[in-house]
């Protein structure tokens, strides 16, 4: 294809990508480098039904002058990134210098909100992704072996968890693990401990969130693998069977290699999806035990009445960098396969 034709061909896609992906990212980066202009405070008296009190208010005129001078706010460079809410460079250095054991150092780091969120996000991604891959493949193979009559209904049932809105699905599980819920009450009865609470312990909360994550994303990998299984060539399988290959050997040497591109695709999607885990944390009110990078962004923009656009921007940029790091191995592999095929 001549370059000219090619350019015309990709122009619509390129325009859309610049408008909806590149420009927003640039805007987020610019916002993350700025903080609000100074809020000029004046002392004032406020009176109401409960009496009068001395308080402060924002001097709007003085603040408006500052705002007009620099509409973007004050340039803050990388300080938002390096500050306590994010990479906390100074706190890390201090913790390293003043702690004696590595464990103590880790617990000091875990006290910082960004690293705490990052730990849960990484553990969640690292546990949910392989489980969903392996179980999804297992279920796909299982369903593929079923007689035709029951296959349709089984596929439908297997897909159900994916149809439930994450916020609602996790809320249902949250109620089930409550001390008065069916799972919580059963566990209390089994362990004969009436004060056993899945919500009160960090470990059990993480476990429940991860369990929810696996349950919810499993159908995605299942359906992709099931579709892939329909394309497995029958000739090599028959040949293998004639040569006396066991079912396990057929799976390992023929089916899985055939599905490899799909495995790469599903891994890619799962990594991106799991890294932005968010809804179950809100539904579970799990913030005391587990937060994630997406949750920090949500909290910064929403909870304080003063949306912290700089902080939210910085967390977003760090999340993008995190995703790129995670995807690197998969991307490199795909690139190698692509080049290998061309040569």
């Amino acid at each position: 294809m001549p370059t000219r034709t090619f350019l015309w061909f990709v122009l619509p896609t390129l325009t859309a990508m610049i408008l909806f992906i590149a420009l927003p990212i640039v805007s987020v980066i610019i916002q993350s480098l700025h903080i609000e202009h100074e809020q000029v405070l004046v002392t004032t008296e406020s009176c109401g039904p409960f009496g009068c009190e001395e308080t402060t208010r924002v001097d709007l005129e003085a603040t408006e002058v500052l705002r007009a001078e620099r509409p973007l706010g004050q340039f803050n460079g990388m300080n938002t990134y390096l500050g306590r809410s994010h990479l906390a460079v100074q706190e890390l250095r201090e913790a390293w210098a003043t702690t004696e054991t590595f464990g103590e150092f880790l617990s000091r780091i875990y006290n910082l909100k960004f690293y705490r969120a990052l730990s849960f996000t990484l553990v969640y991604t690292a546990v949910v992704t392989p489980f969903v891959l392996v179980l999804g493949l297992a279920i796909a193979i299982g369903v593929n072996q079923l007689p035709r009559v029951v296959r349709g209904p089984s596929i439908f049932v297997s897909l159900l968890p994916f149809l439930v809105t994450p916020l609602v699905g996790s809320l249902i599980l949250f109620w089930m693990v409550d001390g008065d819920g069916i799972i919580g009450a059963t566990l209390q009865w089994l362990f004969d401990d009436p004060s056993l609470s899945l919500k009160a312990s960090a470990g059990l909360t993480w476990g429940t969130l991860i369990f929810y994550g696996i349950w919810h994303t499993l159908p995605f990998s299942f359906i992709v693998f099931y579709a892939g299984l329909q394309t497995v060539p029958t000739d090599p399988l028959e040949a293998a069977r004639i040569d006396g290959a066991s079912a396990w050997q057929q799976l390992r040497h023929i089916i899985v290699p055939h599905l490899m591109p799909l495995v790469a695709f599903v891994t890619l999607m799962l990594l991106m999806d799991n890294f932005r885990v968010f809804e179950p944390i809100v539904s579970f009110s799990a913030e005391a035990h587990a937060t994630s990078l997406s949750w920090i962004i949500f909290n910064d923009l929403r909870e304080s009445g003063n949306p912290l656009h700089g902080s939210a921007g910085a967390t977003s940029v760090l999340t993008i960098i995190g995703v790129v790091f995670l995807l690197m191995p998969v991307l490199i592999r795909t690139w190698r396969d692509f080049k290998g095929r061309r040569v």
Partner: protein
Amino acid sequence: MKTFGLTIAAALLGGAPAFAAGHGVDCGPEGQSIRILASDFPAIHAVVNLAEENCAGAAAEFERNHTTEAREIMNAALTPDPAEYTSVIVANSTLVQLMNDGLVRPLDDLVATYGANLAPNQLITIDGNIMAVAFMANSQHMFYRTDILEQAGVPGIPETYDDVVAAAKAIRDAGIMEHPLVMNLETGWNIGEVFNTVYLAHGGDFFEPGTARPAINNAAGLATLETMAALVEYAHPDHLTHASNETQALWEAGQAALGFMWGSRGGAILDDEGAAPEVIKNTLLSSAPVVQAGGTPGATLWWDGFTISANIPDGDAQATFAALASAMTPEMVQANNDAAVWLIDGFDPGPAAAGVAATAQGGAKSYPMFPQMGLMHNALGAELADFLQGRESAEQALADVEAAYTTAATEAGFLQ
């Protein structure tokens, strides 16, 4: 069918001004636009319903949006000129959020013209300007199960935090309940709010006077965390996930004997829906606890009231103010007596209002109206859970709160 619906609507709309005129309601200039943004609970509906009944006929349009997300959208909705809404119904903390951006107008002229029926204590004055008109109050306070206190041999109704802890211990020791206390300690806003209440009872200040510099890492702060830890010992194991809906449900299910909950839940608990008869019969609403007898009750007083947007034509502002002011009548209060603790004449405080009334009379402070309070509240909400779970010391928790607040307040421009 459609025509029939329209006829009914026309009849209703046509009927309204006649009714209004009959009652001598002043709806201000005619043909204006009234658009109200409000939170979503029965007391607010009662006020806005009457405003609509009185003045929708005289206005060119009367729109209302009741949403629990009001706080999240109001600044964005009031920023354009003309603003999306002519009035937002706010509370102490949310008024500050609007005033920080200069989105509401002073009401002195409007009160003079249309506010004849408003009581002086309804007027929220900041720097000498009336900025909002309050109509109801709310606060946290204690709920007790008198039958269980008696059964556990607790003498009288607890007054101090120590009394509450002692009562909890007595109930546990008597083998009646392992976790007799319910409190809204959900990580985030709720846990931060509990700190605020106990901290005010200990006489603490949140900021250095006249500045946005934090001032909670002190003796009062430490005492506050000590009190919270003593209480939490007897709280339901899932307390870090409990907000009002959960604590109310536990109370109505008879699973708690001591509760630190919102006054606005009192009416819902005492009505004949949801709770068992013995719970309703034996629930007593009483003042928030104090540190020492005669001290400040540990609660934050709240009011709900209406504001008028800055970025709207004066005609809309007059019509909106007149409509809402016309709803502040003793008749409306009498018809909805138990829906709220009304600040309007004609309110007859029943058992459901006893807790808020006692707390306010005891001299509880109102929720702090500092422009940077939201950031402090958020930092408290995020950093205190570790302490309550015994994972860090009180000193470390307070240092974390101040550090988190300082970072956020610097970014928001309150600290340099």
